[in-house]
């Protein structure tokens, strides 16, 4: 039987352990502070200034940037498009990825399953900006392969302007973003599916449960906690569509595909055709405002899912 050390010695040992723990945490903490906490804090400060980003002249303007932002129709337009990316893009990607994950996990087995996983994950590996540039050629309505395919098969008699038609541009970028990141969500679901104990399925089969019943009664309830995480991660990814959209459309035509990230970039860095100077302070305000808004949405989402889980627990009892 182990004998506990005297209290004083235990406390010393604990302090020593804590010292080592903090020592090991220190490098990570320093880097995180430098590259995450400091920029975040600086952004909040910059958002209260009128600053072009390269001069020392920072004029403190209080909440003026936020007031201007609230009255800026272009900001709200981009905010709405970002929400479309979340509210439509997330269910689309999460739902499709779940279906495919179940198929790859339960129906297609062996090497074929590995092949499909690899194929769907490949776009995730490629840089978004590179994919964007390549896709502009692929989708070119003049001489792109998609346009030629649609024409030769007789599906269309005029070129489809996927990226330059204001009615299509946003949806095209959303679908392409979904395709590019689909593999990531698929991997999440496949990992989650690995946690379902096979004995449950075996027992259900013995009880005579069919495939659909096994899915509804076993798979989905077990996956629910993972769904919360996967939805949050996917929503986060869908709010980071800058590189792909910038490469595909630059937010155009006439802001039709401009999400908040592109709006921030345009305001902060993009030189205006009229020779305007960048507004880093205003762009920071847009970033902070949007960050807060998405945080609130994420908290609401988590709260709603928690309610659902609690409701289920009550029903189970």
């Amino acid at each position, binding site marked *: 039987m182990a004998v506990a050390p005297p209290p004083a010695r235990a406390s010393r040992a604990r302090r020593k352990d804590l010292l080592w723990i903090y020592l090991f945490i220190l490098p990570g903490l320093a880097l995180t502070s430098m590259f995450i906490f400091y920029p975040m804090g600086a952004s909040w400060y910059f958002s209260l200034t009128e600053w*072009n980003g*390269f*001069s*020392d*002249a920072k004029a403190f303007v209080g909440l003026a940037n936020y007031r201007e932002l609230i009255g800026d129709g*272009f900001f709200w337009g981009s905010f709405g498009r970002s929400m479309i990316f979340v509210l439509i893009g997330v269910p689309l990607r999460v739902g499709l990825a779940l279906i495919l994950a179940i198929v790859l996990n339960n129906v297609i087995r062996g090497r074929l399953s590995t092949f499909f996983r690899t194929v769907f994950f490949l776009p995730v590996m490629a840089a978004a900006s590179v994919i964007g540039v390549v896709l*502009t050629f692929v989708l*070119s*309505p*003049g*001489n792109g392969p998609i*346009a030629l395919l649609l024409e030769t098969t007789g599906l269309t008699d*005029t*070129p489809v*302007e996927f*990226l*330059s*038609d*204001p009615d299509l541009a946003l949806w095209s970028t959303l679908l392409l973003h979904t395709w590019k990141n689909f593999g990531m969500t698929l991997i999440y679901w496949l990992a989650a599916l690995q946690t379902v104990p096979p004995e449950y399925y075996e027992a259900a089969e013995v009880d005579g449960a069919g495939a659909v019943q096994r899915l509804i009664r076993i798979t989905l309830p077990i996956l629910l906690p993972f769904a919360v995480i996967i939805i949050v991660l996917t929503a986060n990814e869908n709010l980071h569509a800058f590189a792909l959209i910038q490469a*595909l*459309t*630059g937010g*155009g*035509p*006439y*802001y*039709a595909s401009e999400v908040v990230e592109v709006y921030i970039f345009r305001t902060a*860095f*993009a*030189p*205006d*055709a*009229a*020779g*305007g*100077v*960048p507004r880093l302070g205003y762009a920071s305000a847009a970033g902070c405002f949007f960050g807060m808004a998405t945080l609130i949405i994420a908290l609401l989402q988590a709260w709603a899912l928690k309610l659902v889980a609690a409701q289920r627990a009550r029903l189970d009892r």
Partner: protein
Amino acid sequence: MPDDDARTTFRRRSVLGATAVMATGLSACSVETGSESGTEGRTSSDFTFEFDADATDSTQLTWMDSGDLKALFIEPVIAEFGEQHPDITTKYDGAGWEQVNQVVPLGIRNGSAPDVFALPENVPPETAIGEDWVRPIDDVIPDFEQWRAGFPETALINGIHVFDGRVYSWPLNSTRRLDITQYISHEAASAAGVEVPVESVSTWEDLRSLAQEITATGTPGILSTADHLHYVVANLANTAGWLGNSDGMNMRTGSFEYSAPEYLEALEFIRSMIEDGSFVPGYLTLKDADARAQFPTGLAGISLNGPWDIVPWDEDHPDFEYTILPLPSPDGSSYTIPYRETGSNMAWLYADSPNTDAAVAVLKFMGTLEGQRAMVELSGGFLVSTIEEANTSADPELLHPQAKKVTDMAIEYMRACPQFEIRNPDAGAVTLQLEPANPGISATIEGILTGQLPDAGAALEDLDARLTEAMEKAFDEARAGGAEVDIGELQFPNWDPARDYSADDYAALGE
């Protein structure tokens, strides 16, 4: 030349080191420089640098700008300076605007900016000066007044090159260059049954018909990109008598006139060709570099663009044949296009450069008659000097066959319009306060053509109103800051668009 003279010269008719420069367009695109392509830059000028290697702390010369056509001149000059002075390491970086926009501010922050650089696109000169990024050149260029006297009287302009009486930069080349002309592919025109070279496309209807004929053969008639479309509309509006300059301002009335009938007429004409199906599909997302690369391979029949495309076509598609014609006017009558002679491609001297002597030696040579002639010759004549003698004395054998045509067209159709900067030395204070209209003209045109802004007239009136409001605010703020400016100084009632606005005209304003 005596041996002990600090100046060194490169022999006449020299064949310079390899200069592989893909000359590119207005937009911020990358340029390959310095690779061994075998392209030989020839010039009849002496490369004379006033530089004493033994009496300087300079160890290197680094130069960064956007590349483009000017790289055909700047790169060999810097390379030659390095050859003449082996102790000086030279590097020219013409990697495009994106690189300039990122690298220069970063270099300023950490004290390692290039010795000479182009200002980032979104940094006004006043800011660069106020932040001590750059330094004046009038006290470091030897015999400065004599050097300055080589330029025309109005070449160095307050608020553009001169600030608070100090000269910070100078125009490498003239802005007298037609941004938009017709480049008609012979292959596309022939396929449409049109005789080549195409002799005349003088009315808007001629252009529309030709575009329709080419489109009927399966090749889109018109190539233009979203980035350039507002230049196309503005130039077409000028052919219809619109007096707006590149900022949309009529310098006679001093007011923004994007909503003028002629401008709307030009916009409607473009829209009619789009509705005909004559425009290249996807023109709104087509990148300039891609358009340039694909035009010779049959992307479209008529490109509405500028002369910067010619050199890359020569290099990549030497067999590509085309006709260059000026823009047509509505009824074929003659017209003029107002332009502001502010000079192009200004270079700025890094304030903390330890290599000022080397930088100044090169800058000084570039601004001499010899240097400017070398620029004209090395660019094949596509870069036009503000020093007329440099243009006229350039060796015709060294000029590109199309360059004279393009230059003559610019002389025939372009007229210098009045400039507030020349009229009032305090103009720079207004420029510094001027906030851009958002959305600007380029985005507004995009919105109109895609139907997102269904009422073109109302959208352009709104733009005019926002531009006017921004201008009035800028004047108020400039005055509050002590500048002696009046918004009435934007009006030049004695401007005759048919001729160049001269120093006498400024004097005649009675100021």
